[in-house]
């Protein structure tokens, strides 16, 4: 009996030994949760926010961060659907160009994100009396920027799938969540340790959520933060596109498209 049990343990260890994303995933969620809620607790303990404002900041933060998360996951899951159904071979030998594939994945993600967030938006209003549309026209700017952020992360994930194959599949579910502590969704950049703040400043999300808190707490339009966030998104999107294109070319050279598609 011990040997049979060992056989099954070995079956899983062998898999983890060969796949660093799978290994990383084991410690991933507890660490992340601790970081996010640790920083949030620090922020709240230092601020004198009324219960209504604090509640709105948290709920709007959850809803808007879901735009980036769903945007990223929709793109990567739509791509993975082709991997799981062993259909990639058919796709890549059709006249569909890589840019057209990317555009179609992004378009699907818009639809999936809107459908995915609609019930949560209604529930936020019905149960917690928090109407996200109270943020006004700036909400559209927040939405578009966070969606684009989800897209460039997704392009990076798909590039990693080209590079590492289905072994990197776990990244599709985890990578955007991993950014959450430095995305400053529930607290400002200043809540982070000094050494971590440059990383947060480099992410569009930290500026978008600063804009959201300004709109919520002071009813002000934080133009510099939103402009900076938008510019960062443009830079990251170009970088994501270049990485995707480079890994696609490398995959064609290595023959990875054949093994991914079968």
């Amino acid at each position: 009996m011990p040997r049979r049990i060992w056989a099954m343990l070995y079956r899983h260890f062998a898999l983890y030994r060969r796949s660093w994303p799978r290994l990383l995933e084991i410690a991933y969620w507890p660490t992340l949760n601790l970081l996010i809620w640790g920083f949030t607790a620090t922020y709240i303990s230092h601020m004198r926010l009324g219960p209504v404002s604090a509640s709105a900041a948290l709920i709007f933060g959850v809803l808007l961060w879901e735009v980036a998360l769903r945007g990223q996951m929709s793109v990567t899951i739509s791509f993975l659907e082709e991997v799981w159904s062993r259909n990639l071979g058919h796709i890549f030998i059709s006249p569909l160009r890589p840019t057209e594939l990317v555009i179609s994945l992004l378009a699907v993600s818009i639809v999936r994100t809107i459908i995915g967030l609609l019930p949560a938006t209604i529930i936020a209003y019905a149960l917690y009396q928090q109407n996200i549309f109270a943020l006004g026209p700036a909400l559209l700017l927040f939405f578009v920027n966070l969606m684009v952020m989800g897209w460039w992360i997704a392009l990076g994930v798909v590039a990693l799938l080209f590079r590492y194959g289905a072994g990197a599949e776990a990244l599709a579910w985890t990578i955007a969540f991993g950014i959450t502590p430095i995305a400053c969704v529930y607290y400002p950049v200043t809540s982070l340790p000094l050494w971590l703040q440059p990383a947060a400043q480099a992410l569009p999300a930290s500026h978008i959520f600063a804009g959201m808190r300004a709109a919520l707490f002071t009813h002000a339009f934080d133009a510099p933060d939103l402009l900076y966030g938008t510019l960062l998104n443009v830079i990251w999107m170009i970088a994501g596109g270049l990485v995707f294109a480079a890994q696609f070319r490398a995959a064609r050279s290595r023959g990875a498209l054949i093994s991914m598609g079968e």
Partner: protein
Amino acid sequence: MDAITVRNLTKRYAATLAVDDISFSLPRGQVLGLLGGNGAGKTTTISMLLGLLVPSAGTVTVLGHDMAKDRFAALAKMNFSSPYISLPARLSVQENLTVYGHLYGVPRLKRRIAELAEQFNLTALLKRPAGELSAGQKTRVALAKSLINEPDLLLLDEPTASLDPDTGDFMRTALERYRAEKHAAILIASHNMPEVERLCDNVLMMKAGKIVDSGPPEDLISRYGRDNMEQVFLDIARNGATPA
């Protein structure tokens, strides 16, 4: 103009030479068999013909288009079928054919799908999810997909693998009919030697990435002093290309 012209095609993976300096051509309206044991380089060659894999050296010209520079123009006029890649299982047969019809820009798509459904006995299956079909039904759907754009060049990897003799014969008849009607070129990688004898005008025998022999099946059978292609295949696989 040939459907396929391959010149000095080579694919190297680190120390492994998967395809070693091969050259061949496939005229329009002809069927070419690509034969060889496992690891001979057939799939690598087909992948380079399809643009899925970038050659280390050499050129591939398909229907007048250089695959290194203009592969999408060629891909629109060719198609491929293999039992080793699938169609999305949860989409119905009709939805799958519609997706690929749009990808290939097929005009009057509904009519084209109806034609293919009738030709491949798929009409009753059109609303069924592709994943719920039997192996034979899936192969018929895959062939229908590969003909959706009425390709001038059809590449087939083991088109009748795992099919019963009746379904296999149905597929071979369909391929013969398509070739005759459209004057299409077909390249088949197959381990089914009676199929090769029936369908192919010429065959390329591959071993260790090289083309070790080629010619019409009847010529090869005669040169090797054998009764059929199965015996020729075994001769080459075990003894190398040494005609009697």
